[in-house]
């Protein structure tokens, strides 16, 4: 009956990043498997895969208030003009200046109950970008996200529950997984708090998992990443910012940009606003989006961000009613606050965090620069024996539900005035267009390289610094 997980004492090895323990030492493994190895004769020996096993910790701030408040609801967004798609798009009941019905999340941290209630029918896409620090056993603090279901203003007949599913979170218990059949989900008008102890740095994604074919496609999707414990150590890389606990600075960077990939099938969005059901096996991606926008909107500014309040999530400026403030000069992008324009100084190392919650594989190509893949699916590119498996490429083939962490070094500036421009685009050209004559659009953005010293330090991810 007893279930006492007696975790063997471990040598912390003096590396803050190495809090994961290998369960079996090499010697222990030899005792267990030595007979087999000997019988086999010539097989390559490496330690057994006990995998990384974690020491449970009591968190000191377990009962604190949530660190982030998200609301799930419906709303409207704007995609660039193009030829109509049947009678599905632009949506004939969309309020000006919008054209596409969505479901989505909003960051309602710090709002009054009245302000929160006001955000019904004010969803954004992509969902609020948020990030956490890797769980630190020396300062064990849980990260808590409260999800409030505000309901669907245009479709009260659906009375759908919502959840928060952190896609890729290892060893999750069903209670905090957000998959509704395995545990519970959040009905309209109710709250639920999810607790995370992120043990593994890297790039993940999150989405509502209720009726996920529909809720994911309708826009309840965003990117979340975990900063490594190695952060702040400037002995490996001068910025002290890293993607993983690399121990050698190989994942150090100066700037970081989230690149969240999603899609819009016009017919299904129209169907949800017109109380119809699409046949999902007819799916096609009419629009492909980067951080919720389609080029050239991807290079429009971020909405005004309160940098001081953006410690763990982008805090987009709001008015007294809690309404999002639109990006400068772009009222049509009020509910698409995240820019994808990459700005950097010559010589800087730039981290791109890709995550794909579209339904199709994408081929993100960076023309003229090499990207080094240092992580995939929140896993540092290292074999179990430490073999470096990172690689350089100009194209990331990223399937639905996959993430890639890449770093490129900005080349020297060519001289003259203004930045040098490099294009980042989906090599699957059917998804780098907006169906109009220009041939350009969709999952596409620009990388602007400025002369050294031109761009200020980033205050938050995707910050232009200019």
């Amino acid at each position, binding site marked *: 009956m007893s*279930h006492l*997980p007696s975790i063997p004492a471990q040598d912390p090895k003096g590396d803050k990043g190495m809090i994961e323990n290998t369960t079996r030492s090499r010697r222990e493994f030899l005792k267990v498997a030595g007979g087999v190895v000997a019988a086999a004769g010539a097989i390559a020996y490496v330690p057994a895969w006990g995998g990384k096993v974690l020491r449970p910790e009591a968190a000191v701030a377990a*009962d604190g208030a949530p660190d982030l408040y998200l609301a799930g609801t419906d709303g409207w967004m704007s995609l660039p003009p193009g030829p109509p798609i049947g009678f599905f798009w632009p949506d004939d009941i969309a309020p000006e200046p919008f054209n596409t019905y969505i479901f989505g999340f909003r960051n309602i941290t710090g709002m009054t109950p009245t302000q929160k209630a006001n955000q019904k029918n004010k969803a954004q896409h992509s969902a609020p970008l948020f990030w956490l620090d890797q769980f630190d056993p020396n300062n064990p603090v849980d990260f808590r996200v409260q999800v409030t279901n505000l309901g669907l203003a245009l479709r009260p007949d659906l009375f759908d529950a919502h959840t928060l599913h952190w896609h890729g979170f290892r060893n999750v218990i069903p209670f905090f997984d957000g998959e509704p059949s395995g545990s519970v989900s959040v009905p309209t008008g109710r709250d639920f708090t999810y607790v995370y102890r992120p043990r593994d740095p890297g790039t993940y994604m999150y989405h509502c998992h209720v009726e996920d074919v529909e809720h994911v496609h309708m826009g309840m999707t965003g990117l979340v990443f975990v900063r490594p414990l190695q952060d702040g150590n400037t002995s490996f890389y001068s910025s002290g910012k890293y993607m993983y606990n690399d121990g050698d600075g190989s994942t150090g960077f100066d700037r970081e940009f989230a690149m969240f990939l999603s899609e819009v099938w016009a017919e299904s969005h129209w169907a949800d606003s017109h109380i119809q059901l699409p046949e999902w096996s007819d799916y096609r991606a009419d629009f492909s989006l980067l951080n919720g926008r389609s080029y050239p909107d991807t290079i429009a500014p971020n909405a005004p961000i309160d940098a001081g309040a953006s410690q763990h999530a982008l805090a987009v400026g709001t008015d007294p009613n809690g309404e999002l403030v639109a990006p400068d000069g772009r009222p049509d992008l009020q509910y698409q606050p995240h820019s994808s324009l990459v700005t950097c100084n010559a010589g800087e190392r730039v981290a791109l965090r890709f995550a794909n919650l579209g339904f199709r594989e994408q081929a993100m190509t960076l023309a003229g620069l090499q990207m080094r893949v240092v992580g995939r699916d929140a896993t540092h590119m290292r074999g179990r024996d430490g073999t470096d498996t990172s690689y350089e490429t100009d194209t990331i083939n990223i399937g639905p539900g996959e993430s890639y962490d890449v770093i490129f070094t900005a080349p020297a500036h060519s001289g003259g005035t203004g930045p040098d421009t490099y294009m980042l685009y989906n090599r699957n050209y059917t998804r780098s267009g907006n169906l109009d004559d220009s041939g350009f659009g969709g999952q596409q953005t620009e990388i602007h390289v400025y002369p050294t010293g031109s761009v200020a330090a980033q205050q938050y991810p995707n910050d232009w610094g200019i």
Partner: protein
Amino acid sequence: MTRDTYTMERNIHMRAGYALLVVLALVLATVLSVNGATPASAQTLAADRVGIVCTDGPSFTLTTKTGYISLPDANTMFMWGFSSGSDSFQHPGPVLCVNQGDTVTVVLNNTLPEPVSIMFPGQENVLANGVPAQPEFDGGALTSLTNTAAANGGTVTYSFVASEPGTYLYESGTDPETQVRMGLFGALIVRPTVGSNFAYNRADSQFDPSEEFMVLLSEIDPFQHQAVEQGKPFNMNTYHPRYWLINGRGFPDSIADNFASWLPTQPYGALAQIQEFDPANLADMPGMARYLNVGTEDFPFHPHGNNGLVVGRDGRPLEGPTGQDLSFEKFAINIGPGQTWDVIFKWFDAESYNGDEFLPDGVTPNSDYNPVPVTIPDMANQVIGVFYSGSPYLGKSEVLPTGTPTLNQCGEYYIISHNHALFQITSWGANMTGPITYMRIDPPLPNTCTP
């Protein structure tokens, strides 16, 4: 409720539950001893109901058959398939299990009205009727990727030495855009020399043989199958899958037992039933999932709650020239058409979110027994999932509101795995079906699911 009061109430409740469990165990033990029966081990029971069903070699007879399968939208589908010997129609074909170094012999008996063959991708020096297998041509035009058994009763015998361990497909090489789509495919598993509980001849590829599973992903265009059934032509330019299956079944059938009586032609379940990984037990090994894709595009399969460690692809271990480990963890197994991926996985109670239900009397809860650190909403303020026990804790159940159905048996966890090209989570309009299965994590033994 605050955390403190919640914990206290739970303690009282769990003590009672613990006592009840002990009584149940005693009663069971008494019954068994009175009858003189020997309780079958949990592993044996589980292995029959879940996990890979091997047809053991190295000599096989595969007979082509026609039949029907059931789909989650209540449709039935006309199929072709390989069956073992004189067995009745089944889908997919038998899982052929052999040992590295075996000389494998496969006799193909063809009952279909057109020639059929079998390709063994990944195998070298395949012989057909004793001579090297070759593509067939008719007047210079390719008619088959390999030697055929003639229509209506023809036979051909393939043989090869299974030289490299791993997971492989076998599938028709004749009119494959029809015959493979119609179901003429199956899995071949080659066990390594070091033992059947290893994926490859590497010490780091060991797994628990009671936790070995198959994830064979396929797709169906119903109009193609209808055309074949009616003897009409089908234009492949109109090919458009409407169903996506795991091991020949769509969810929820996918999590039914192997050989479920209501699925007489679809014998293979896909439920991954495991025990939590115990880091204190050096003999505990992770589970193993063998992924295969016989569809026409990449299937990005996403197991929740664990990063699978990909140790091999297409029957070759991921290692460098001098044995360097090139394995990698993935939360999305993005497997291409015709590929196989060998994935080691486990689930570990990393935060000891186990409550204290397993504490012996007199033991004080400590940091190893973390309660879930949130105030849990009242049941009326939650939507209850059909696999939920009513408790966040493994091995614990709570009374659910009246009228709430649950399929949970003993507080076990259900953590989903599914294709993340989500438009494929359908059966031609029956949404939230198709390529979905679950990882079922049973409470530590003994539990009330398994005596």
